[in-house]
């Protein structure tokens, strides 16, 4: 194995210092300017930023579909949109929020923050990271362009057969849904593997498993849920597309198939999906609370174990989405019990967070406000969840607005509120400027009030018997007033997001300059400049504590010996984070984009002819070969 220290032209950071080191590393790790630079970059911060912005864009598009639906339902027998458009709207809303926002946003934040928090220079497999972003973007554009061409899916975000099957959904709408799944799940799986390997193998020396920040633990566990859950929806959507396009009978009862099989496959993914959306929320909360409570987190071990327990239990709940499908009673009882069981680790987490705040000296800045909003909303959603875990109640309110209210409390409470807090918290790290605190408070209160006004009345609408997914209702049903109230709340909630965008746009130009650590936080991402340089850290820190910046007030101890003439990072052991290798990290490349285009063309082609998979295999193989073939650069020749 090479002894690079003596190799000619391989300069080490040992012999450089201060600004010279910074300039040198920035040049080696930097992304070239211009269009080519933008298309070839493998910097996790640039890709992470794109991921975050794109996911927010889809959040807005999903929000607009919701708003149109709310306007339609604001009064009985409204004629704003017809039934066909309405079917597309709720399908687009659910699919966009779950697949283009819910899963990607957690991974997007992880792509940006995890490498910084574990003290490394780039994510593991940075070209795969670039590829996954392009695939995700293509999938999102494919869905939305199809919608604009009036071939948007109209079979619900879970596309149950037989409705989505060949008999009842002729045309291409259901195929668009199924292939959008293939795009987004491929990209989601790739990112999950990158995060897992980054956490296992690229932690800074000294960051033993019990010093890994809770944020990183949560996204690490989340990545495991992703790699076990997402294959199920890929299998379900692939089987669906096979039934639709090449005439298989997997879901066709007339030829020995089974329609309920689809629901099992879908919800084997679909329930863990809820936790895939929630766990990043816990990650944000666990990062924000210690900083603003001014003390270390209470019950670190209990929190880590709760995350892992949640991960396991999330795979044992799926059937509670199928209580009204006529399952054997014993099965239903089992899944009721397991649905209640998962409340235990989640409750434990909430108590640890409250204990941290209770024993700390809370500073009520915007990020912490959003966390408080999360407590209120998520716990309310959890309680209605416990109600739904009981078969008799579930049977009564199944497919009503009660369920709509419940899962918006859980998903918006569990993900979106912590996320907004997280953006307020890390915006200074992303951009170098703080968001306005004054607008932030307005933003929080508008969102909090708007949310509750929109969704609380839906519990009652549901109990009054209003079904989901109806495009209108008669005045004699008596739902009009509550529906109008929900629409008013939705408008307020939307206004809070407009304010958020305004805050972001204004603060980007005029916000207070943040400096490296504006909140005096304890984790490693705050040890570097804001925004961080391309190489993240001039020298790799040595970690001695769970909150390194609080423990090492005089500056972090560091490790030296990495190359400054090409991209090199430290690989460490899984449990003890003991340095093992100085490994090269891939340089920018156009091949991930080329591969993503080839893969995308194959996916889209396949909904028109199965032969597209054969033809497409050639360009895909060519692109992957181009990707992996070593180039004349030091990163490839080591």
């Amino acid at each position, binding site marked *: 194995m090479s002894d690079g220290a003596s190799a000619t032209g391989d300069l080490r950071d040992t012999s450089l210092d201060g600004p010279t080191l910074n300039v040198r590393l920035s040049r080696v790790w930097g992304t070239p300017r211009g269009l080519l630079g933008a298309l070839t970059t493998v910097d996790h911060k640039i890709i992470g930023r794109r991921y975050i912005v794109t996911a927010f864009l889809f959040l807005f598009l999903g929000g607009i579909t919701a708003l149109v639906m709310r306007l339609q339902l604001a009064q009985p027998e409204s004629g704003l949109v017809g039934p066909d458009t309405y079917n597309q709207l709720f399908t687009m809303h659910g699919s966009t929020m779950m697949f283009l926002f819910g899963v990607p946003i957690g991974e997007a934040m992880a792509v940006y923050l995890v490498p910084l928090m574990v003290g490394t220079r780039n994510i593991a497999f940075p070209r795969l990271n670039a590829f996954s972003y392009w695939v995700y973007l293509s999938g999102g554009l494919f869905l939305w362009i199809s919608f604009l061409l009036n071939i948007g899916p109209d079979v619900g975000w879970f596309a149950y057969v037989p409705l989505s099957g060949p008999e009842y959904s002729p045309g291409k709408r259901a195929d668009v849904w199924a292939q959008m799944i293939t795009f987004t799940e491929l990209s989601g799986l790739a990112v999950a593997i990158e995060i*897992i390997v980054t956490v296992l193998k690229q932690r800074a020396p000294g960051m033993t498993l019990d010093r890994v920040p809770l944020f990183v633990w949560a996204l690490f566990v989340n990545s495991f849920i992703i790699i076990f859950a997402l*294959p199920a929806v890929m299998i379900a959507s692939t089987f669906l597309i096979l039934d639709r396009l090449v005439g*298989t009978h997997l879901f066709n009862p007339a030829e020995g198939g089974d329609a309920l*099989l689809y629901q099992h496959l879908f919800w084997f993914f679909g329930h863990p999906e809820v936790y895939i959306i929630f766990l990043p929320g816990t990650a944000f909360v666990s990062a924000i609370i210690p900083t603003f409570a001014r003390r270390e987190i209470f019950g670190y071990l209990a929190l880590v174990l709760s995350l892992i327990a949640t991960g396991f239990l999330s795979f044992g709940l799926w059937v509670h989405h199928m209580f009204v499908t006529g399952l054997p009673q014993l099965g239903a009882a089992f899944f009721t019990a397991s649905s209640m069981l998962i409340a235990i680790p989640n409750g434990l987490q909430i108590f640890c967070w409250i204990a941290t705040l209770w024993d700390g000296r809370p500073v009520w800045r915007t990020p912490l406000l959003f966390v408080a909003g999360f407590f209120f909303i998520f716990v309310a959603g959890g309680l209605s969840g416990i109600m739904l875990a009981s078969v008799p109640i579930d049977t009564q309110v199944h497919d009503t607005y009660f369920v709509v209210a419940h899962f918006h409390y859980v998903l918006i409470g569990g993900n979106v509120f912590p996320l907004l807090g997280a953006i307020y918290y890390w915006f200074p790290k992303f951009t170098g400027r703080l968001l306005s605190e004054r607008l932030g408070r307005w933003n929080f209160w508008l969102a909090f009030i708007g949310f509750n006004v929109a969704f609380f009345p839906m519990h009652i609408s549901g109990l009054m018997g209003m079904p989901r997914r109806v495009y209108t209702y008669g005045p004699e049903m008596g739902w009009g007033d509550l529906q109008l109230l929900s629409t008013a709340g939705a408008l307020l909630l939307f206004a809070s997001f407009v304010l958020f965008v305004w805050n972001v746009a204004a603060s980007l130009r005029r916000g207070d300059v943040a400096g490296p650590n504006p909140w*005096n936080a304890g984790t490693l991402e705050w040890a570097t400049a804001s925004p961080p340089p391309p190489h993240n850290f001039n020298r790799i820190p040595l970690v001695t504590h769970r909150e390194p910046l609080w423990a090492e007030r005089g500056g972090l101890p560091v490790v030296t010996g990495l190359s400054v003439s090409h991209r090199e990072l430290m690989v460490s052991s899984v449990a003890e984070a003991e340095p093992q290798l100085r490994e090269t990290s891939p340089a920018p490349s156009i091949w991930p984009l080329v591969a993503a285009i080839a893969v995308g063309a194959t996916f889209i082609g396949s909904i028109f002819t199965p032969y597209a998979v054969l033809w497409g295999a050639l360009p895909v193989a060519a692109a992957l070969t181009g990707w992996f073939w070593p180039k004349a650069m030091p990163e490839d020749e080591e």
Partner: protein
Amino acid sequence: MTTLRAETRPARADVPRVTRDVSALPTYGFGPTSPMWWGTLGFFVVEGTAFALALGTYFYLVQQNQQWPLAPAPPNHWAGTLNTLLLLASLWPNRVADRNAHAQDLWRVRRDLVIMSVVALAATALRIYEFTGLGVSWDQNAYGSITWVLLGLHLTHLVTDAGDTLVLTALMFTRHATGKRFSDVSDNAFYWYFVVLSWLPIYLTVYWLPRW
């Protein structure tokens, strides 16, 4: 501006306390030392879960039907059995390739990769031939569908591995065949273990379960 800002200490990054130097560490490693090995393991999990769910589907459909197989006769197993024997036998040259990669013996690694390329291509060809002996078409009934799906799903892995091994073989005959590439050869061998082992439950299910 805030209490938090006031508490911020001045950064003292200019006076680093160097505690350790890693110059002497190697630049690549094998097995669990290498991040690529863990990445490969991650893809095993993903693909293994997909296999498990497809097999689960098969058993679910068996339960849903009074009679199984939904065909006059079970599939002809001889091509599949031959392929299984070939795959099992290939574990030995695969092991040798891995060992020679660890030893960084370029000549032997080239020889082993050529052998493994031939094996992968032969297994792929044999697999395509296996479809002709199934005695049921994918669009005939659910039994035909899931049988074709299982065989097809594993076929994509054979094709992927064949492509991968061919490119790597070509690479090892160029000037790039140094250092880290030996670790790549080792990871390629690791993937082949997965391809072979994931086949065994599929083989038993597709060819022997209908004879039960």
